[in-house]
């Protein structure tokens, strides 16, 4: 049986022939856009498969890996009561950020599920409210650190694409702090919008009005006059040193 791709023929959208298409995830459809078998064109309709969505494995090696880390050592304690998620600062803003559910996915090694949350997985702000409530003292706040490490290690490409903007904004933030010893919110906002390709919005009415107001009451100029904090050099060295160490740690856990 000869398999041969025919690039020239234009075909329909993936899974277009499935009647209840809206019920099925993209990932669950297997289909060659252009496929000819033994000279017969079976593109689209004839080679569409819906993959089973049954979980068929609990991957304990993943659990063991998390348990080895300092931050994730208490993963075996969690009994899924939900008190962490209930007290979390971030969940009400991003319902998809759910510390309890993430811990469960890590316990069962369900990377397929975890992958769907890469964009929010690192959103923990480190307030430790969850750890204060957790009846088993799992320390879920630190479990979220374990999660961030895992996500980086197992999904480097997704992190690269989905978190690119975040990384860039983080860089702007770091440079600003290290360079000036101060956070210039206006500048951070402008640079982030530029990176996101949304610079145009900066010229909207609200922004224009704000700039005008700040120029009028003099705040805009006082910001420009702000210097560096006293003795900044030493603090700067300390922070740079810390960031360098952090990178080494991350590399070692990879």
């Amino acid at each position, binding site marked *: 049986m000869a398999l041969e791709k025919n690039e020239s023929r234009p075909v329909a959208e993936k899974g277009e022939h499935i009647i209840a298409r809206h019920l099925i995830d993209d990932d669950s459809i297997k289909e060659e856009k252009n496929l000819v078998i033994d000279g017969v064109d079976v593109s689209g309709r004839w080679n569409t498969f819906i993959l089973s969505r049954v979980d068929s494995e609990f991957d304990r090696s993943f659990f063991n890996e998390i348990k080895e880390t300092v931050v994730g050592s208490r993963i075996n304690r969690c009994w899924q009561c939900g008190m962490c998620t209930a007290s979390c600062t971030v969940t009400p803003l991003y319902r998809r950020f759910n510390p309890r559910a993430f811990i469960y996915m890590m316990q069962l090694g369900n990377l397929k599920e975890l992958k769907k949350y890469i964009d929010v997985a690192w959103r923990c702000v480190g307030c430790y409210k969850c750890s204060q409530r957790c*009846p088993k003292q799992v320390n879920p706040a630190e479990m979220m650190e374990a999660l961030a490490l895992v996500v980086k290690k197992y999904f480097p490409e997704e992190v690269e694409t989905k978190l690119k903007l975040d990384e860039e904004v983080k860089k702007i933030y770091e440079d600003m702090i290290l360079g000036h010893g101060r956070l210039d919110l206006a500048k951070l906002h402008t640079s982030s919008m530029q990176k996101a390709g949304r610079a145009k919005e900066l010229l909207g009415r609200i922004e224009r009005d704000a700039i005008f107001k700040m120029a009028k009451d003099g705040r805009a100029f006082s910001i420009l006059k702000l210097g560096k904090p006293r003795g900044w050099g030493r603090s700067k060295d300390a922070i740079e040193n810390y960031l360098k160490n952090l990178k080494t740690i991350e590399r070692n856990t990879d």
Partner: protein
Amino acid sequence: MAENILVIGGGPAGLNAATMLSELGVNVTLVERDSFLGGNPKKFKYKFLFPDMQPADNVIGELIKKAEAAGNIKVNYSSEVSDFKENGKKFDATIKSADKSEIKTFDSVIVATGFEHFDPARDAKYSYQLFDDVIDIKDLERMMGENNLLRPSNGKPPKKVAFILCVGSRDRHVGNQYCSRVCCTVSVKQAIELREHFPDCEAYIFYMDIRTYGFFEDLYWKSMEEYDVQIVKGRVAEITSGPDNTVVCKGEDTLLRGPFEIQFDMVVLASGMEGGPQSPEISKKLGIELDEHGFLKPENVTLSPFKSNKDGIFLAGACTGPKAISDSITEGAAAAMNAYTYAVKNR
């Protein structure tokens, strides 16, 4: 000459032990720190008992009546054992009340000092002290016993009530890792009673596990199938105040994956059982062992759950851990048998 046996604590366990011993012809001295008999069920006016919802008086009233009617049980109300010494195989105890104190020699001793209700004020996240409409299962038992099921804040019938399980139990932060065993069953029982009284009142139970073990499960099924009690999976992490004199339960619905903040007009906390201050006190005074949960420790939890580590001193009821009244009564009988055997052997 008849044997002399000391029973400390006049709850279900101590009462049954005393009555059985009296039937064997033993002279029983019963020491009770309260001014009445019947233990916690009497103190908090339990009205109907799980598992079969029979009136508490059928059980507790009956036990008290028997003990009081027996000619050879000397009940010492509002009193305690102030001093305790071993005397060969026997024991010298000083029994002290407000107006007198007497020393007596006993052939053996039964400790039935019971439990204390966990004080929910100790777990600040549940705002028990802040809001009138946040009560706990012992408060609700008492309210039902007094024929008053109305909202404490305004005296109106409740329209929407939440039960929160595992308060003061199974939580490292409050220091109690164990399960209190009865609070799930008490909660479903009370939810049924509420729905019976106020058919318009919705009842929800927030749970992590529902532990209506053995035949207690019948009540759990009944609460759902006959009374439409709704269970929601997730432990509540905080109680705050809401608009229109409501209280808000904040938690995660772990099945739906997401936080909720729901208004109720009454919240009932299923507070658990603790060894109370009496367990370490008695442990010290009598020289018997305390366990890591704050209850008295049996010599062997499986082989001899009614024996202390000291020969001649026996244990019965909730002083060795959370349990139902039936178990407490059974242990009272077991301890009585063992205390009697010990006394006869060392006559």
